[in-house]
């Protein structure tokens, strides 16, 4: 039995990624606390969830490529590089802020 419990988080997109998410930079979400196997949800799980549930755009490869967040996108957990926090395995906590930044190159 999957739990009905949800956790509130804020997901933000910047650097052009917001275009893939209905042109909204900030999304307040209530995500399930447990995945289909009953494990606590992680940022890795969130990436798939965003792709399947939140992104209306068909260009999934602009966000996820070969099963990973596309090169050129930084993932920040509460304003810190997710590599400092355990990357995809980081377990989401209530009120976490997950920011996806697409690198810019113009000048």
């Amino acid at each position, binding site marked *: 039995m999957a739990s009905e419990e949800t956790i509130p988080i804020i997901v933000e997109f910047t650097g052009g990624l917001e275009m893939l998410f209905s042109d909204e930079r900030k999304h307040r979400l209530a995500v399930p606390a447990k995945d289909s196997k009953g494990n606590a949800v992680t940022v890795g799980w969130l990436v798939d969830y965003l792709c399947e549930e939140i992104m209306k755009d068909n260009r999934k490869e602009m966000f996820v490529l070969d099963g990973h967040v596309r090169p050129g996108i930084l993932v920040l957990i509460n304003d810190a590089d997710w590599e400092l926090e355990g990357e995809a395995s980081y377990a989401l906590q209530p009120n976490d802020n997950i920011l996806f930044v697409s690198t810019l*190159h*113009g000048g």
Partner: protein
Amino acid sequence: MEVATQSAEALKRQIATTEEELKRLKEQLAVVEAQSSIEKAVDGLELGAGPVTTGKWPLELEEYKRYGRQMIVPSIGIQGQLRLKAASVLIVGAGGLGCPAAAYVAGAGVGTLGIVDGDTVETSNLHRQILHNTAKVGMKKVDKIVEKYDLVLDCTDHPTSRYLISDICILLCKPLISASALRTDGQLIVLNSPPLPTGDASGGPCYRCVFPKPPPAESVVSCGDGGILGPVVGTMGVLQALEAIKLITSGKLLAREGEKADDASMLLFSANSNPPFRSVRLRARRAKCFACSAEGGLTLEGLSSGSLDYVLFCGVTTPVKILEPEERIEAREYERILKEGNRRDHLLVDVREKVQFDICSIEGSVNVPFSTLQGSGGLAAEGEMPAWIPEALPSDAPIYLVCRLGNDSQIIARKLKENGLGKDSRYIGDLKDGLKAWKEQVDNSWPEY
């Protein structure tokens, strides 16, 4: 009487010729004046070449006046000002970032300033390149070398140059201040600070530590395609100058023995967000980084031998070549169709984004943006007609697609065919070379942007 008329005619001709000559002279004067003002501005940058100090005081009297307000800021002081004067800064890229960065780096009293750029200045860039004026359009920019400088500012506009500059800075132990901008967003990172040798984990991360893999070439959007706001990129360039001043005046150009890197951070600027500035914490040097770790494969020899192909590494976008020649028509051919036929005989679909369509469009065309067609909507379920096809359009009426340059229109033409819109022997094709060709072949009054 006839003599008088002839003499009047002769005088009129003479006036016309003289006016022409005057106009030409005025234009020449404007060019000369513009050049001399640029030369003056450039002279002003070379403070190191000025008269030597008298010995009693370390700076020229003029310099105390000029930099006084900056020197009385506690974090600068006389020591900071002397460090600025002794420092040399290389700015790579003299565009929207490089121009304001150069102005403020020079204005702070940095002794030596180098500016490198491979591009020529285009008029479309002038709204954000504040050091240029029209007299410089078409002029080649300068060319210098990293080695001679203490600090590098990456003000370029492509991943290729960003990886290359970062690699050079790692190999030569130079701190690097990297900024970028697009639309209303900007990003700023101070890299390789402290600039410790490769293999020293205490050194600041490099561009490859933060972005080990380059983004797919098709995801890289230039200012020319995505747009840019002058003050946004200007803000980022000015912030680069500020970081440069901070590094120089705090004596951080060279790494000190046993120095540990402060947490690296990236500053994000979004003009339309609240708050507009946000600083995020980045990782330290990557243990297996290709450039800055002990086991990385980057060497000066490899770099200078040209064995590293940065263009290949970042990938290249080749011009789209999807449609067959018979699926494409010339702009002048479409003009003929317009003149001979009736607008209801066909449909012209402009796939540029709405913001571009609003600037100018061919009369009678309908706008269905590329992003809509590639993204969530724009195409109906199988067997149904998309809402943007007028009901009155006969089922065999041709559909022509047009965009700015003739790339996106090919992708959409193919997509519409795959979606079954080409059945009933309907012709689907695009206007070759897009609206660029429309201007060249049909309507030279077309406002190219």
